[in-house]
């Protein structure tokens, strides 16, 4: 079966997205007319050296930052047309986040952290699903623990659970395993991959680690604010090779 252009559903996409920081002599072009789409139900990794624009791309796609020109869409919504309040609502309902560290509100317990985005809104959430997610990340017995009672890996798992709890259109991860050892890292990434495969979740993560990137379905390579290469079904070696070739 061939996948036609029409049949692809974009969870998020960017259209000639540019981001310029500063002005005049200090002008920095973080993104230069990037056009990219993140297919629903796929796991995408964004790679690139420091200053390549990978984080900027993710932040603008996630509605945390605004483009200088061009458009970013989540589902069918142009983020540029939303005011701050609407953008916040969008992040709350349509986007999940996993940061590198400090993902959790220290005064809330595991379950409360997971339901936080929904509590900030109308509070309507499928509690069965929430419990399932928490069970799946293996924190069923820690449901009323506070973040300071959890290990770093457990905290990231809570973050993953929170990102999935609202069944968002798309989940963004900013070096989600950057602070973890390789074993814990592998667990988390495996779980993220399962979320994509089994639950049909869309995930985009920024990373600089080839092994991490290898868990994704597709890797985008950025340099100087532009997408310079794409790779499907990456392995650590193929990613490393590509980085090397780009570096030359």
């Amino acid at each position, binding site marked *: 079966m061939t996948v036609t252009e029409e049949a692809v559903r974009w969870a998020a996409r960017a259209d000639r997205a540019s981001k310029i920081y500063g002005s005049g002599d200090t002008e920095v072009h973080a993104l230069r007319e990037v056009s990219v789409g993140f297919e629903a139900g796929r796991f995408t990794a964004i790679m690139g050296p420091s200053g390549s624009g990978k984080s900027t791309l993710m*932040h603008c796609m996630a509605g945390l930052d605004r483009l200088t020109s061009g458009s970013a869409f989540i589902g069918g919504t142009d983020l540029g047309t939303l005011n701050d*309040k609407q953008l*916040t*609502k969008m992040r709350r309902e349509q986007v999940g986040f996993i940061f590198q560290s400090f993902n959790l509100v220290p005064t809330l317990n595991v379950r409360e952290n997971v339901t936080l985005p929904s509590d900030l809104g109308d509070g309507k959430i499928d509690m069965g699903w929430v419990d399932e997610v928490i069970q799946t990340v293996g924190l069923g017995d820690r449901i009323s623990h506070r973040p300071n009672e959890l290990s770093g890996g457990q905290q990231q798992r809570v973050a993953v659970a929170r990102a999935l709890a609202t069944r968002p259109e798309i989940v963004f991860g900013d070096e989600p395993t950057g602070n973890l050892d390789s074993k814990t890292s592998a667990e988390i990434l495996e779980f993220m991959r399962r979320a994509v495969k089994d639950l049909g979740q869309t995930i985009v993560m920024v990373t600089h680690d080839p092994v991490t990137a290898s868990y994704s379905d597709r890797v985008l390579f950025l340099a100087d604010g532009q997408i310079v290469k794409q790779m499907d079904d990456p392995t650590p070696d193929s990613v490393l090779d590509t980085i090397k070739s780009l570096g030359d």
Partner: protein
Amino acid sequence: MLKLVVRGIRANLGRLVLTLISVVLGVAFVSGSFVLADSLRSIFDQISEDAFAGVDAQVRAVEPELNSSGENLVRFDESIIDEISALPEVDYAEGGIFAFEQTYSLLDDGEVNRPLGPPVFTSSWGGPSPVSSFTVVEGVAPIGQQVALDSAQANAGGFAVGDQVTMSLPTGEPEQFELSAIIDFGDGGTGGAYFNLFDLDTTQRILDSGDVVDSVVVNGGGTDTDVLLAAIEPLLPADVEVVSGETVIGESQEDFGSVIGIFGNILLSFAFVVLFVSIFIIYNTFAILVGQRTKQLGLLRSIGASGGQIRFMVLIEALIIGIFASIVGLFGGIGVAWLLKLLFSAGGNSFPDGPLEIRLRTVIVVVAVGLFVTLISAIIPAFRASRVSPLEAVRDGGRKERSVSFRLVAGAVVLIPGLVLLALGMFGDVDGTAARLAAIGIGAALTFIGVSMMSALFAGRAAGMIGGPVEATRGINGRLARDNASRNPQRTAATATALMIGLALITGVAVLASSLLATFDDLLEDALTADLFVYEANQGLDFSSGVVEQLDALPSTDSVAGFARVEMLVDGDVEAVTGFDTATGTSVINAGILDGTAELSQNGIAVFDETADERGWGLGTTVPVEFEDGFVTDLTVEAIYDDRSIVENSFIVDRRLSRQHVQIDAVGFVGITIADGVDAEVARAEVETITDNFAQLTVQDNTEFQEGVEGQIGQIQIVINGLLVLCLVVAFFGIINTMALSVLERTREIGLLRAVGMTRNQLKSTIRWEAVIVSIFGALLGILMGLLLGWAAVVAIPDSFISKVGIPWLSLVIYLIVGGIIGVIAAYFPAQRASKLNVLDAISHS
């Protein structure tokens, strides 16, 4: 080292400026109190010097042991004037007579023209002379049916020289006087007092004093003062003395000075309360700043800074802030004093102008106080900083908190002596109200500190409880607010303390006021049985006793009884005695006669039961007494009474006796019962036909009397609260400061919340409710403490003044709401700032 300190201050400038404000407020208050009092003192010193400039000597009565005439001086025969004038050493001599609150000018509508507060003086005046205390603004000295008024009074009444002015007189028959001159006391400025000047004969006639004077002022025309005094001395009868002009000036300055001193001390004590409150705010800021810099301090330690150096650094930082705050406060206070002086002067031309007096003492005290307050607040944080280990540089967060038992013990060490002092003040065997109040004051300060220390133990739980309803109604915002308010109990406790103290004092005052009212209500119910009261409502001054006879003669009145305060020697001791119309008095008041008859004979005395017990007196005991005119007699105890709330004194004699032996036959209060079958309105109208002739008198029935007292208590409360509000202002800045620091500390958390979908408004709401919870905690503690303090004070104050505890429930609710509102307003800027944070910057904040 110093460079680090300066950098540290610069980095935290915003926060330190907020801290500064609380020190500056207190310091400015101190500085302003000093400057204002000093300036007033020097102005009034100048007035005294001007007023008595040409007076080389003054002849006057020796201050007697007994004086029932209040402010009025003892009078002596005027024949001495001629004798003194005849002396070759004397160039000019003028005899004068003076009276306190006896005559008043009337406005066109018949209302009395008088200042609110300052007194009205009646005096004789011989016109411009070397010894005159008055300067003529316009016109000539009054003769016969003429009067001279001070310029403030003339302005207030719209009187011009040549006008006919109706004057209310102690005779009860107002008369018309031609305004012959407008004058000023000294070179202008009477401190708000009014002066009514007549010639000597007219003054004597008005006061019905006979041919007496109370002073002769003498100008020697260059004669040496000692020679002048020596020449006058032999002419003087017994009990009359001559003093030099310098003495007169000195005494006058002392009189003014003591009033200004009391005023200054009241301001100062409020200033110290404000400073006390600000100590908690400064402490809290330093504690938080040190906590936030733990990593930096650890780094310094790991590269070789000693604990002592770290401590030194923090203290130097405090010192710099202290110096800065003291200087700003010093000038701020001078500015406030200048403004107040301007305000006084603007209230009419009654207030003299003069330079601001900035003494070296003021500068030294202000700077010392500012430094002391800042340093003492920084000491604990400085020691805590010095104990930061080098390892903290690499460890993440995790402040070490004082153990519960340490806090319990430390808090108890402060709290228990505080409570003991409080108890001692209340129930202890302490002599004198002043000592009692001092014990309560110091006890309260220690109790505040102790409660503040210990409140950290329950602040978290309490904030959680207060936050309960917030969470229930505000959802996740309320939940986060509640958690944030209770996550750092020390901080919550320290922040709440400032508000606690402010509201505790305000509540304490409210409890006192409502207890006073409750006592008064009881008193009206039990002790006062009169239908109408006549008195001078403004200052409670005495008035002519002729009023009593005139009222008694009215057909609509049944019983009319007057009260007079008389000083007598009772069994050898100087005592205040109530001269009372006991024959009619039983229907006017109820003194709680335990034994004997309420109606005393002219040889009888009634004694308060406790006094009778102390002295071992009973019915029939003979008591030797002496009156101020030297009349000696034996009185028999004819009654024992136990309610002196109206009588006020421990002895009662019949006024028929006492009035014969006083210089000025006056009463302070008249109670009236209305004759049977007479309509209250009719009776009142009739009573007013009499009292209208005594412009200063007020006629009130029970309800009005009560309302009047309520109004007076309310006014005093407003003034005190006006000063205490500064404590709330300091507390307000403290909450802003803590909230701002907490927001800064939680920048990443805020970034995260915003990223996962918290709107700006939700964030603001969370911060606002956190501040409200902390404020309500402080307010609740304050109200509880205030109830305790108020109750303690009521117990300490003699029962004759306040005997019943009244709780102002409505006020308490209002204070709680005010506390919440303070939180809402204080949260505004921190919330605004937090909501403006860029989400990405906040998340990556380290």
